[in-house]
């Protein structure tokens, strides 16, 4: 029933490249000074996507669980680096905690979906596992970085209030609770908002892709529903995880706030 996918030829891609020139002309005529960045951006996009295409084709061809897992871990590392770079502050030991958070919540959610809901055979089938984890990590890293940003900001700016509470006999949990709650909330807002507007304001990329590739729209919608809930679960788990791991790092067993561990991000 699905119409065959129309393959793109190199000529088609060249015509698409001409579209970037439109942006270049706008920048040039309005003196936006973006030509250089546009050129670099366009070239990077092409190179990065081609590279991903080559790697995916290679991994798909290998049909090996180890290769898929290796790629998944690489993706989690890249997402963790991005997640700790975005917040205005960082703390020593933040990177591996972000990695632990994103890899555990990402893999858990991905394999729950592929194993229990979709029923993928074999369990590591890259065509399903890799794009699903990609979406989870993309959303998860946004959640984790927003959550970290909010938590470190609160702890830094309200350290006197937190220390006052500790001085009056609050446990570290009692002193940190409000800050943790606000941070998890902040991290979850984007994914909650996206559930509100999905299909009305935005057509998700995955669904669009499936429809372009000739899938039945209702089939694509079913997948998208699974994906939305999966992203909500993964982001919620990720925010809670990173908040708790950060809390355990910055509040020690003597119920002190180790404020010296928090640093402003360079640049």
């Amino acid at each position: 029933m699905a119409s065959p996918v129309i393959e793109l030829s190199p000529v088609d891609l060249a015509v698409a490249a001409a579209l970037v020139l439109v942006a270049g002309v706008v920048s040039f005529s309005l003196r936006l000074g973006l030509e250089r960045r546009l050129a670099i951006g366009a070239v990077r996009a092409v190179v990065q996507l081609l590279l991903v295409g080559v790697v995916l084709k290679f991994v798909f061809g290998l049909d090996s669980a180890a290769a898929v897992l290796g790629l998944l871990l690489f993706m989690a590392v890249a997402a963790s680096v991005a997640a700790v770079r975005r917040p205005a502050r960082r703390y020593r030991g933040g990177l591996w905690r972000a990695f632990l958070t994103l890899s555990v919540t990402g893999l858990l959610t991905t394999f729950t979906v592929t194993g229990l809901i979709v029923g993928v055979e074999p369990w590591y089938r890259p065509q399903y596992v890799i794009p699903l984890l990609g979406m989870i990590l993309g959303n998860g890293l946004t959640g984790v970085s927003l959550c970290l940003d909010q938590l470190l900001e609160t702890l830094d700016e309200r350290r006197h209030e937190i220390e006052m509470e500790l001085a009056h006999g609050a446990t570290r949990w009692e002193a940190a609770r409000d800050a943790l709650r606000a941070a998890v909330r902040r991290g979850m807002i984007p994914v909650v908002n996206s559930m509100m507007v999905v299909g009305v304001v935005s057509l998700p990329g995955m669904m669009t892709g499936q429809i372009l590739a000739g899938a039945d729209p209702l089939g694509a919608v079913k997948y998208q529903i699974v994906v939305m809930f999966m992203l909500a679960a993964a982001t919620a788990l990720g925010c809670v995880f990173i908040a708790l791991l950060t809390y355990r790092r910055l509040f020690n067993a003597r119920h002190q706030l180790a404020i010296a561990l928090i640093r402003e991000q360079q640049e």
Partner: protein
Amino acid sequence: MTVPGALSDAAPLLTVKDATVGAGPVCLFEGVSLALVPGELVALKGPSGCGKTTLLRSVAGLIDLVRGEVRLEGRAPEEMGWPAFRRRVLLVHQQPVLLRGTVRENLERPFQYRAADGEFPEARVSALFEQLRLTPEHMRRDVRNLSVGEQQRVCLVRALILEPAVFLFDEPTSALDEEATASAEGLIRDEVARRGAGALVASHDPVQPARLCRRALDLPSFASSGAGAAAGSNEEAPHGEPSH
């Protein structure tokens, strides 16, 4: 070295033994020892910036001692649990720190902690408010609408109603005018005498220690001679002198 001139032979409330105090990599004091008996106020004297605040935060365990130990009635904080220890050895910060919300919410908050004991003492709060020239209407006020002096008085009330064994006051009257300072000092003195509590009072005011305390610990005499100083190099340092 224990400060001489203790009021009685009663078992000490708070003991600080051979404490080395530092802020991060900087070592501020070495060999600080002190025994505070019930009913006693001891002043911590020294110029601004000498590390009085750091010493008080170390005693409260909000930062670690580099070396040495603090005990309350012979018990180590680890044994009591840090929140319970801090609830009984209460640091009152120099800058008044209040949470968003009303005065009442701020006063009630510490009674909601797990380490809290006892009910919120409504009548006592009213009496303290009157003595510190705060009106009942202040209870409903948003803390952002208080002057710094009012905030400091609220913080003092919050500390007094918790009835800790030991107060650690960091410049308790720095934001108060003369009259309010006199009331606050009177309250602190009465509270310590009435319950047999103890208090360490950090002050850079040259006369407050004399008014409030019978003896003083002169902190510069414990000043660390630097990161490379040999342990116990302050063995010969003069004892804290009575301030009057």
